[in-house]
């Protein structure tokens, strides 16, 4: 399934946001905000939120300065 993550096309198997975080090896999901097709997702809804063909996601990292986001 092809989706767009941060402007880049990716071929993924995950069907939920939680699965996607795992598949993309996002080590610190608590440091990332996720936008799905323009809407900021509720952090508690990742498990229930489906990812579908053609979805556009933005992973937006906390940036204060000097902390490890990845």
């Amino acid at each position, binding site marked *: 399934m092809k989706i767009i993550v941060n402007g880049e096309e990716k071929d993924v198997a995950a069907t939920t946001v939680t699965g996607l975080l795992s598949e993309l090896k996002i080590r610190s999901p*608590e440091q990332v905000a996720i*936008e799905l097709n323009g809407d900021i997702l*509720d952090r508690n809804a990742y498990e229930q939120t489906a990812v579908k063909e053609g979805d556009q996601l933005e992973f937006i990292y906390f940036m*204060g*300065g*000097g902390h490890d986001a990845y």
Partner: protein
Amino acid sequence: MTLTDTQIERYSRHIILEQIGLAGQERLLSSKALIVGAGGLGSPAALYLAAAGVGTIGIVDNDSVEISNLQRQIIHHTADIGRDKALSAAEKMRAINTDVQVRTYKQYLRADNIDNIIREYDFVIDGTDNFPSKFLINDACYFAGKPYSHAGILRFSGQTMTVLPGQSACLRCLFDGPPPPNAVPSCSQAGVLGVLAGVIGCLQAAEALKFALQQGELLTNALLTYDGLQGTFRKVPIRRNPHCRLCGESPSITTLEEVEQPVCDLKGKGSCCTT
């Protein structure tokens, strides 16, 4: 306000611009900007706003200059090591442009003092690096109705977003609150390419100038991200979040409160190095 001949010459490259002219320069000289943090982001912002003739510039910082700051905090010189950052920064701004009235605040911003300070200004630049300060500025600007520029830098990347409180997406629309403390290593661990502070701090200064001039489109409802290694900018649209705890439809944050979260173990709470 009438510009002197010297001022007309000093600001001639502004005045010649159709979007600025004499009236725009007068507007800048009447404008007031607050820069929180005389660090990596605050340094270029302070230098350019002073050079641009922003009439009143406040600079908030409670730290003193350390040698490890000098790699990116370009308003401070080697001879300033050990001096108060706010005073060091003010000295450089005054040296660039005597038209500018510089006010220094050698203190940390907290819930009980931030409102009185930001109310004196038209626009706020967040040049801090720690999350309690970032959320405190976001919240205080919301309650005071002050437009402000958020920014962060990390390694080879940076991001910035301008917030018009109540009108455009705020930091809490994006991030509910600071990340959990155990997820955040200390400031010294990740590093940052010094020039990133210049790239992003200058973008923040540009936003302050555009706001004062009422020209162009502010970076609202969008996060501009810069990847220094790839040399790419991306403007990620950010919608206001109806569930935002601060500016959403049923907010749970209704008064300004201290934002608790230890970020950096270098110096203790609230005193973390500015980016």
